[in-house]
């Protein structure tokens, strides 16, 4: 990922580092594209620059950004510790050359070995006092993916007091959204109980203006104000949305009129993103959202939220979480000295209004249903992307290329399925499946990852092994769900759900809005 400039987050950065230093663990809540990754990468950049200048006293702190998506699908704590050690080595090398020989990373790390490795690295950089790990996608080490004792170990090294040598030299920041609450669930040693919470809120108007001018420095004042005003009122200052809209303006800024510029911004579509937001909203947040789109006016005080949550048949204590959630998802903002929330982000609310009926008719979607719906979207998006890119690259020879990649046997079966399907629907003779409709998910994955085609997709999918892992995780569940296997393990469903989520975001970015409309 290319580092984006981080605007409007100075206070959050300061608060994050202060609380990490004081509490040793921070949960950073932010919805999709709220700017978590940009923020964390920026923190690392700033801290490395500061640490470079610190020479006299051993109290510099360095923040190490770690994308936990980089963990293998079957990762264990050892992989987690190893990833942290490797990243730390890379970051510290940017601070300065270590004094003394560099220790070769081990293949396996337990918690003690990890602590020892970090201590060794700090010793090699005497000006450093503390390493703060900025762990993006904290959900990767939550739930069934890692044993619960893993959290115990982290708790032990952070809060073990004097007997934990790393107690003062380590801090962890986990970023994520609703799933971070699982850090608070354990009965004996929940990291969440000691952690500070930071909610990543929307940008203010001034920051949006800075963002717009950062992308389109050539805008004159009047146009800039209008574009800023439009983006702010439509996005509510949501970092991801505002950034996309500013990009849209930037793309046409040099050759279009003032009205054309605003029109270009207006054409930016966010439907797929909003589908995800809606899907992930908790029941309590949906209860409030339903009231908002039903025309209920006024601000949302904490009590009003609690009452709404209770009226929806949910635990009113969830209101406190809903209060935060509506902010970090980016659809409400604080007003009246923090006393009430008011809906912002008109783009989202219009979208929510348009899908609210569908949501209501679906009833309460369970995990299996949600996952199946996501799998369908992933598969359809993969087909669309494969067809588009193969056709772009090989034109009429696209199918021949697919045939070469998949092999004659597989291709024969695909054609066989298509022919059988044509005969099945006697009542709809005009119905014809395409070859792509007849491919299995695994075959689509092969078309993406083949050495012959990977270059077409590498720019979006990045790490091939990660993509392979996603497809594996999705395929297993997909096949069982398609055969109506009962009582699938929840952890497998969740694993698949997350893989779908992650892959879908990339696919939709690759496809662009126009091509994903049909996937809804």
């Amino acid at each position, binding site marked *: 990922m290319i580092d984006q400039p981080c605007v409007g987050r100075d206070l959050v950065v300061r608060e994050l580092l*202060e609380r990490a230093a004081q509490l040793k663990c921070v949960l950073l809540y932010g919805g999709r594209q709220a700017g978590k990754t940009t923020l964390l990468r920026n923190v690392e950049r700033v801290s490395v620059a500061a640490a470079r200048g610190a020479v006299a006293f051993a109290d510099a702190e360095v923040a190490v950004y770690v994308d936990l998506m980089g963990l293998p699908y079957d990762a264990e704590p050892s992989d987690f510790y190893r990833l942290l050690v490797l990243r730390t080595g890379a970051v510290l090398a940017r601070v300065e050359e270590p004094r003394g020989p560099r220790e070769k990373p081990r293949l396996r790390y337990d918690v003690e070995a990890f602590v020892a490795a970090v201590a060794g690295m700090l010793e090699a950089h005497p000006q450093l006092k503390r390493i703060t790990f900025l762990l993006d996608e904290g959900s990767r080490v939550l739930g069934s993916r890692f044993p619960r*004792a893993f959290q*115990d170990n982290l708790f032990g090294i952070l809060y073990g007091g004097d007997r934990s040598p790393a*107690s003062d030299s380590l801090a962890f920041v986990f970023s994520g959204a609703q799933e971070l609450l699982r850090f608070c669930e354990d*009965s*004996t040693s929940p990291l969440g109980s000691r952690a500070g919470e930071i909610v990543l809120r929307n940008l203010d108007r001034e920051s949006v203006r800075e963002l717009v001018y950062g992308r389109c420095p050539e805008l004159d004042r009047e146009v800039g104000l209008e574009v800023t005003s439009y983006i702010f009122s439509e996005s509510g200052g949501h970092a991801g949305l505002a950034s996309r809209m500013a990009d849209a303006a930037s793309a046409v800024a040099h050759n279009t009129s003032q009205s054309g510029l605003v029109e270009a911004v207006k054409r930016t579509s966010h439907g797929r993103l909003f589908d995800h937001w809606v899907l992930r909203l908790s029941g309590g947040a949906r209860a409030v959202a339903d009231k908002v789109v039903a025309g209920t006016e006024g601000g949302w005080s904490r*009590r009003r939220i609690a009452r709404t949550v209770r009226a929806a048949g949910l635990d*009113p204590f969830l209101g406190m979480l809903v209060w935060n959630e509506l902010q970090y998802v980016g659809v409400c903002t604080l007003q009246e000295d923090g006393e009430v929330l008011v809906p912002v982000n008109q783009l989202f609310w219009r979208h929510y209004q348009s899908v609210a009926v569908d949501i209501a008719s679906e009833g309460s979607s369970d995990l299996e249903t949600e996952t199946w719906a996501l799998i369908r979207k992933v598969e359809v998006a993969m087909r669309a992307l494969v067809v588009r890119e193969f056709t772009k690259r090989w034109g009429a020879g696209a199918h021949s290329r697919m045939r070469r990649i998949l092999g004659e046997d597989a291709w024969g079966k695909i054609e066989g399925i298509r022919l059988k399907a044509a005969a099945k629907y006697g009542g709809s003779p005009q119905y014809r499946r395409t070859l792509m409709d007849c491919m299995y998910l695994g075959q689509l994955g092969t078309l993406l990852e083949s050495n012959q085609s990977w270059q077409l997709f590498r720019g979006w999918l990045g790490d091939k092994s990660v993509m392979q892992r996603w497809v594996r995780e999705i395929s297993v569940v997909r096949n069982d769900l398609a055969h109506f296997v009962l009582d699938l393990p929840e952890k497998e469903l969740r694993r698949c759900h997350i893989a779908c989520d992650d892959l879908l975001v990339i696919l939709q970015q690759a496809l662009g809005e126009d091509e994903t409309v049909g996937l809804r």
Partner: protein
Amino acid sequence: MPSSDELSLRLAEIRLQHHRGSLVFSFLHACRFRIETARLLAETTTGADLIASIDNAEINESYGISGSTLFRCVFKSKVTQHDLDDLDKRLTELAQTDIFNDQIAFLILSSVPDELRNSLYRRVDRPTQGHIIVPIAQEALERQTSPLDALRDVLDIWLYRRDLFAHTSPVVGSRFFGRENILATLRNAIAYSKPCGIFGLRKVGKTSLLQECERRTRGMGDLVAYVDLLRLPADVGDARWLYWRIANLLHAEVGNRAQLKFDWRLGGRYEDYLDLPPELPVATAFDSDLSGLLRRIVTSKLNPKPKVVLLLDEIERLLPTGLGKEGGIRGFFEFFSYLRGIAQETVHFAVVVTGANPSLVEVPQFGLRDNPVFNFFEEVYLQLLNPEETSGMIRRLGKGMGMTFGDDGCHRIHRLTGGHPYFVRAFCSYLAKQRRERPIHISSGDVDMVVDAYLENGGKDFREIAARLERDYPEELAVCVELAHAAAPISIKNEDGRVMWSQGSVKHLIGYQLVRIDDGMARLTMELFGRWIQHWHGVEQ
């Protein structure tokens, strides 16, 4: 040489060695510090250490400076990281004595360069970063008019920045408050080799208590093995790690005590757990070591004979039931059966455990196997702080930040928090952030002014309690909600004279100290929890 003469001689050396040494002496004298010890550092040209205690109630009250305090006077012109490390080391040594004030030390030097100032500020802002070191530039010492004002100016700038309430790690030594009764109970249990289990709410201070118990027990000459079971590596599924760890800790405890030396089979032999040979019968080797050690103790001429004290923190980590995690560890039954056997066999062995849930010792069986520690431990419930302990903690910490608390303020905070040490600290930390003027006197009115804001911004911990109750004890949560809505004590009996709630619910709520029952009237122990429930239950007050 008489000690007073020795002190005079050392002071003379310091004053003669460097002009700044002479200035420090005069300054301390003018501020009414009583110098207790003084010495030039090993390299006499680099500086000197003076330990002094102040006889000034106002300084003591306003800044919490009491006990013996270290003043390091630096003669050379530049202070380096090495100097700070050396000072930290010295403070750590001095902190072993209870009367020493290890919360603060003074560094007297020619001037305070920005880089040093910033580094020391970071220590103040981040308490875990090292001892608080307050620099005093020579210029302040030379203010002939009022050295005490100069001292106040420095302390205002440096000490009033601190938040001594914000502390997330276990506390021991001089930072440990109260609990004298329960510490005496523990000492008694260890003295009579009675296995003891400390149980209590999360964050109520179990680990701090156990670590303080460790400190005091070791101070009495016993051999202590403290095991934080949260450190049991996530991929360890059996008790081998425990045997290895305890044996190594005991081996280290024996150290150079010649009368207890023998050939260990496990302890001290394998520095890294992964070095243990797979074929090594670890439990047998451990038994050999422990038996050998106990034999040495019995046959030694040590008087009193030391005890082997095993302290296990967070016992839930091992449990083979739903009370524990992921089925606990293999070998749990054998491990505790063994401990039970040893404890019954010898008076030189004691074991103390902590846990959140006393079910460990209340359940006769786990699955189909007999619980080896059923009724084995004497159950000790860690109580919340009483009003005096709460006030003592608030006042002592507040003093060091320029906050004084009146009786009414202390009482109000105790009522709000029920004396739960974590909530007392969390609330006071929030209060300190809201009221930044210093010095400041806090009354009950000041406390009440921030309660609503605290609940809105800092209610995460209550959310956890509510979530835990909802998941595991919904009936108990309903009782809490009822009490919160009543906003006053209510009778536990209904009109028929029967207790309104189930016996189990009442037992849990009292055990976890969420509810108090006095004269048949029940109320929530922590008023804040009640207010939080009102706040988030969607009920208008």
